[in-house]
């Protein structure tokens, strides 16, 4: 780690220090308190919630959880979220690495144009393609199918994926590819056994970015799917809490269930996630 310069006490005004602590503590409270309130409220029955909005439950009960799980069909929601997240992430990584290798190491006059089109895509927003995607999925019969959601998810992950992979593979010395060529390896062989394994760090970054993006994605799947059987967590939770707006205990239980996977994922992959975010932010 880098060595930090010690700050002389006289340098940093105590008032400023108090102010900084204050802001940081306010943010901490604003994050932890609502989450705490959510979990506590999910342990109350509706009757108790109405009498006791903020306090700890007198008779904590877990009974809201099984009911919420069943009513919101969390089995289906989890399986669908897992499917879309895993499938789209694997495909985004594979396609981005392949294209990145082609753009970075193979000579072609098409590269500036094709690579450039992906860079433009980083700036594109979902809104600009939402209605056309909906109409296209209806016209092609992909509406309300898994494939009809998966393909756009992969497409949306590609711009940043191709950008990061191309940059990374460019940093691999040309001599690595050239010497393998002299030894008679085909380009596919070079890609599969040399470049792809070397690109593991960028694949991890990409995986983390894509997992957190797709797991939480709401708008697109909300438009492209109407069947209950294809709903993911955000859609299911939204529908559930809309339908049972006054059933507080169960609603809060459902929100808590939805909250847990991402928070656990974050606590485990905090370093990689923040690294991915700052790498992905080199937009514009």
């Amino acid at each position, binding site marked *: 780690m880098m060595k930090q310069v010690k700050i002389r006490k006289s340098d940093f005004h105590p008032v400023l220090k108090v102010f900084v602590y204050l802001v940081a503590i306010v*943010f901490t409270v604003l994050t932890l308190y609502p989450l705490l309130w959510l979990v506590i409220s999910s342990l109350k029955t509706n009757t108790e919630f109405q009498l006791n909005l903020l306090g700890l439950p007198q008779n904590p009960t877990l009974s809201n959880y099984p009911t919420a799980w069943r009513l919101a069909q969390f089995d289906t929601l989890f399986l669908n979220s897992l499917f879309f997240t895993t499938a789209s992430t694997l495909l985004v990584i594979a396609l981005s690495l392949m294209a990145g290798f082609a753009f970075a190491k193979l000579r072609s006059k098409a590269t500036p144009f094709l690579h450039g089109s992906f860079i433009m895509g980083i700036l594109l927003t979902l809104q600009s393609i939402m209605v056309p995607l909906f109409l296209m999925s209806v016209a092609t019969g992909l509406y309300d199918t898994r494939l009809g959601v998966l393909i756009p998810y992969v497409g949306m992950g590609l711009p940043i994926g191709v950008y990061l992979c191309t940059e990374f593979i460019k940093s691999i010395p040309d001599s690595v590819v050239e010497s393998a060529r002299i030894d008679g390896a085909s380009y596919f062989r070079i890609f599969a056994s040399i470049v792809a394994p070397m690109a593991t760090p960028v694949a991890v970054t990409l995986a983390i970015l894509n997992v957190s993006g797709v797991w939480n994605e709401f708008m697109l799947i909300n438009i492209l799917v109407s069947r209950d059987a294809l709903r993911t967590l955000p859609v299911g939770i939204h529908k559930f809490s809309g339908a049972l707006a006054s059933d507080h205990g169960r609603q809060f239980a459902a929100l808590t269930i939805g909250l847990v996977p991402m928070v656990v994922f974050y606590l485990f992959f905090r370093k990689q996630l923040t690294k991915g975010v700052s790498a992905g932010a080199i937009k514009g």
Partner: protein
Amino acid sequence: MKRVIHWWTEERRAYLLLALPAVAVYWAVMAFPTVFSFILSLTNYNGGPVFNNPNIQFVGFTHYLRMFRDQYFWISLKNNTLIILISVFGQIPLGFLFAYVIHRKLVKFTGFFQTIIYLPCVISTIIVGRLWRSFFSPYGPFTEFMQKFQPGWENELFFDPKLAIVPVLFVILWMYTGTYMIIFLANLQKIDPALIEAARIDGATEWQVLTRIMLPSLSGVIVTASILAISGSLKSFDLLFAMTAGNPARRTSVLALYMYDTAFKHSPKYPLANAISVFMVMLSLLLIVLVKLTEAKFGGRE
């Protein structure tokens, strides 16, 4: 024949096969729909088959004019402007403050604060929206707190057309400050510590280190962050969808929500919806160009 063999080298074949899958998927679901969206916004399409439909005619910029005459367009634009302002002048300075304080270890428990401040960004926006909706609702903690200070206080936050956007702005500030903190932190770590050490040995104060070394070397990042903030603010949809759904009386609508309502609620008005999305893309590009011009004028350096 010789020429063909020369053209069809192994390298070209490999290039084609490796690049094609990504290009095909990306062009099908991103590039083509973008162009398609613009074309659609100039037509009178209103349902039925989109392709090979003889009834579809070009009507010019009619839908754009209709959009500019719609009061909900202006309400949405105003709310988007507020969100951009809170992002650029709220999230970015706060994010920088946290990044700076954490990087220079001016507070204790830096790891803890960093984890907590970024936490909201990883939670599904739908859950965040639902949670804060309950938090600010008449049965939520916010009402209880207010009534402690002001007995008899009535919570009309989500019914008052003027106030309803305030909780949303607050949540947006709370939610995304962490992203900018992470971005600034990553770039602060790139500054050579020896440079700062040398400055300190030469007697520079903390303030001078901040204004003479750190801010100048971050000017490029600040520009990037502003661009992210602007395009991110124009995209905001999920949070509002879950928190207010644009209500009361569509007073908390934003452009994305306005477009969604136009396209998918009541009778679908696809061309108008596409006119809105084309406007959003143009506005986003315009603002990004403005940010870049400002950068050029004030001589920002990477």
